[in-house]
């Protein structure tokens, strides 16, 4: 039957349409209609995405076979049947199935005009890889049309749908939808309401476009477009220079990474035979025995440059905290749930390249894993030093992104992607919660001006708590499962374990819990320290929070480990449906390890507890002493408690928060940030020198100089024209003598 899998291009198209509609009609239609258009469009996308996902699941359950399979594989590799008999076989094979009836379904003339390389390779590669993977090969659905042609090559644009894509589609559209709804209240009466919604739509469109691209070039397009939207939305309130600076910083830092991306795309293109940007084609090449590993290594490193900037990995993460200058819903959508994971998605998508290129599992070079691990621990430490709620969340995001990258780095593909999935929901929930809080407290995010909000805003409080626990990784919330898989992956590794990464992971597990606890208590407990009386936000805001909270609770079970002997339809569904089985390296799947789960949970709880006690104490030594004076009986007990306090506070928490975090933060602000800003400053200086020193003086000087010289020589020659006729005669005769002399005696 005609499936949506072949027509996913509709989904971003819808959003693009809504973008144009809002951009050009928004002002006239007014705010309500604007939001309406946006929400309607996203809902439509959500429906489509869910259908797509459903059909993918169906496809996995009833995988294509025989010729259908072959033709799908050929298309996946960006190949089409060329010789007549092949076409022949295509036709009688592809009955009413996807085949090319669907390709024709696309707006433009399609597959017919695609590049041809021998399709023998396709079938062999198919044979090669169908055996691998946990279950039989289910090739992604790739539908392409010719995009442009250079030389003999036809470059195709197209859509690629597999589990990963479907998952991203659903995630993005859910969160985008909620953010759309949420913003109607949050942005009420904003100066640039329509622009805001226009950008939201554009962003959603680009993000969806990005995740369904069938080739790296297209991904590059989507990648840059989301960057553009992030620029526009961070700088949403550009009257304030601080914001526009943040926007610029974000864009430029990403641009630096993109440099790597562009070169990486180039290298992989040429490595894979300079015939196509097709993702699967490149993966195929990376996995093929004859692959040039050096090229792959360089290519992967360059690509990782892009990841580093986009997904806030060390050392290009500094733009992300500044990006909090944008409206909170934006932070939730772009800088927590979706855009920043584009980098992770890139690794997941081109996993073969990274796997082979960086020798994940085989070699001892754990570049990806290490960067991820370092980022996660660093981000966690930094989160302590923040008093701004959103900044805490921002650093937490960095830390979690590090987690995902680390997971992919240790070969735990499913774990990483699963964490991406779960993290999207609870982190979005946290951000939106924070937004709701600041909505209540006169748009401040300074936690020192909050506190005791649990009394005033119930829903926000509860949802925030749930999300916090999820993030902290308390069983059985979503975060627990994904985090635990990652740890397991690090512990069991591929050919050998990644102990260092495991340690990183565990430390982070503790820190995450701790700083989230800190944020939670500072915000919702104690006395309200701000001014005015906070109030619960309206339904438009709370309902999305609830939805997200529920997701944060439930989605963990999507990948219930086989360890709990639940029926097979319930376990490892995520892995089963999302993990690619085509052009995908053979990765080990970590087993669920109870002791690890326990340890991590304990650490998380400990972290929460530490935070709890520490901030209890901070709240009122005065009250304590009161009780000291009054209740002598419980003195020892209190004292003991005090000991505990000291223990937790001065040793654990303080050491974590104090020197370490401060040092890290200092390093971050002064060194890393310094480098970024310094770089720009230096560039400006250099540019000044180049322009004034070189261009105007030397290059231009030479030009004007020649002019001057000729003028002067003219002036000099002029003086020989004295007006004395006999001198003229003399000159004449001198000329005669000299010339005659030379010609007679020399020549």
């Amino acid at each position: 039957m005609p499936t949506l899998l072949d027509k996913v291009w509709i989904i971003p198209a819808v959003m693009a349409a809504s973008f144009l509609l809002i951009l050009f009609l928004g002002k006239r239609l007014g705010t309500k209609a604007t939001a309406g258009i946006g929400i309607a469009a996203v809902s439509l996308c959500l429906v489509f995405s869910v259908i797509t996902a459903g059909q993918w699941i169906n496809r996995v359950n009833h995988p294509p076979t025989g010729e259908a399979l072959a033709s799908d594989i050929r298309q996946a590799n960006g190949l089409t049947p060329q010789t007549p008999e092949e076409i022949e076989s295509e036709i009688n094979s592809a009955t009413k199935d996807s085949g090319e009836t669907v390709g024709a379904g696309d707006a433009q003339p399609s597959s017919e005009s695609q590049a041809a390389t021998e399709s023998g390779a396709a079938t062999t590669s198919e044979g090669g890889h169908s055996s691998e993977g946990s279950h039989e090969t289910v090739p992604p659905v790739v539908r392409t049309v010719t995009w442009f042609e250079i030389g003999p090559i036809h470059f195709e644009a197209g859509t690629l749908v597999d589990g990963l894509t479907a998952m991203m589609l659903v995630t993005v559209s859910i969160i985008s939808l909620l953010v759309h709804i949420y913003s109607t209240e949050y942005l009420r009466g904003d100066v640039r309401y329509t622009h805001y919604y226009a950008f939201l739509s554009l962003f959603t469109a680009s993000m969806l476009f990005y995740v369904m691209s069938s080739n790296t070039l297209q991904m590059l397009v989507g990648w840059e477009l989301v960057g553009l939207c992030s620029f526009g939305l961070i700088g949403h309130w550009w009257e304030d220079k601080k914001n526009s600076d943040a926007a610029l910083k974000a864009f430029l830092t990403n641009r630096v990474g993109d440099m790597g991306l562009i070169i990486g795309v180039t290298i992989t293109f040429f490595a894979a035979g300079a015939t196509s940007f097709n993702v699967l084609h490149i993966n195929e090449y990376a996995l093929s025995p004859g692959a040039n590993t050096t090229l792959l290594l360089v290519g992967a490193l360059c690509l990782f440059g892009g990841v580093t900037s986009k997904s806030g990995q060390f050392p290009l993460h500094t733009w992300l905290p500044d990006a909090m200058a944008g409206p909170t819903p934006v932070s939730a959508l772009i800088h927590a749930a979706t855009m920043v994971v584009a980098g992770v998605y890139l690794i997941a998508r081109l996993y073969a390249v990274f796997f082979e290129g960086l020798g994940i599992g085989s070699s001892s070079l754990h570049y990806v894993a290490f960067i991820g691990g370092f980022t996660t621990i660093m981000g966690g430490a930094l989160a302590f030093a923040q008093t701004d709620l959103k900044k805490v969340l921002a650093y937490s995001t960095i830390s979690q992104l590090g987690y995902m990258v680390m997971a992919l780095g240790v070969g735990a593909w499913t774990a990483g992607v699963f964490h991406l999935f779960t993290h999207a929901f609870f982190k979005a929930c946290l951000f939106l919660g924070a937004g709701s809080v600041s909505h209540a407290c006169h748009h401040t995010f300074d936690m020192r001006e909050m506190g005791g909000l649990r009394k005033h805003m119930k829903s926000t409080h509860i949802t925030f708590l749930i999300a916090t626990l999820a993030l902290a990784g308390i069983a059985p919330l979503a975060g627990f499962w994904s985090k635990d898989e990652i740890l397991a992956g690090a512990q069991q590794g591929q050919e050998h374990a990644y102990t260092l990464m495991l340690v990183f992971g565990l430390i982070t597990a503790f820190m995450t819990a701790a700083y989230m606890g800190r944020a939670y208590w500072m915000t919702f407990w104690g006395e309200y320290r701000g001014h005015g009386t906070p109030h619960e936000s309206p339904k438009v805001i709370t309902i999305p929070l609830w939805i997200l909270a529920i997701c944060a609770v439930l989605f963990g079970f999507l990948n219930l480990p086989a360890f709990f002997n639940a029926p097979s339809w319930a376990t490892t569904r995520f892995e089963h449906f999302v993990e690619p089985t085509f052009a995908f390296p053979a990765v080990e799947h970590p087993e669920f390890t109870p002791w690890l789960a326990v340890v991590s949970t304990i650490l998380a709880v400990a972290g929460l507890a530490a935070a709890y006690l520490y901030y209890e104490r901070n709240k009122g030594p005065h009250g304590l002493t009161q009780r000291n004076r009054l209740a002598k009986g419980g003195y020892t007990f209190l004292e003991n408690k005090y000991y505990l306090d000291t223990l937790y506070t001065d040793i654990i928490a303080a050491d974590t928060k104090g020197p370490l975090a401060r040092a890290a933060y200092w390093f971050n602000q002064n060194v890393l940030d310094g480098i970024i800003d310094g770089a720009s400053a230096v560039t400006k200086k250099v540019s000044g020198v180049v322009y004034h020193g070189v261009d105007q003086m030397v290059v231009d000087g030479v030009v004007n100089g020649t002019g001057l010289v000729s003028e002067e020589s003219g002036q000099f020659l002029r003086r020989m024209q004295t007006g004395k006729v006999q001198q003229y005669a003399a000159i004449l005769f001198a000329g005669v003598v000299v010339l005659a002399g030379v010609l007679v005696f020399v020549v």
Partner: protein
Amino acid sequence: MLINQFLFLGAILFCIGVYGVLVRRNLVLVLMSIELILNAVNINLVAFGAMWHATDPANLSGQVFALFVIAVAAAEVGVGLALVLMIFRNRQSIDADDVDLLKG
């Protein structure tokens, strides 16, 4: 026949003429110096003419040329003197150095 001494004479006259043209301040004398050069030319022509006539009686072009030169020279000097006269009328001087309104 020997021709060199004629040529020497011509050359010397030529040099004297050039010298006069270059250093004499009095325009009339400058004109006369030019005449000297022309006479040098004539001597050359006549001498050569005689030389070639000796070998080939029909060859008279040397002499003819000389005649032309003399005639034209006369015309030239006529014009020249007229110009000098005009200069003298306009500025009561025939010093070549005074004539330098136009320069640069």
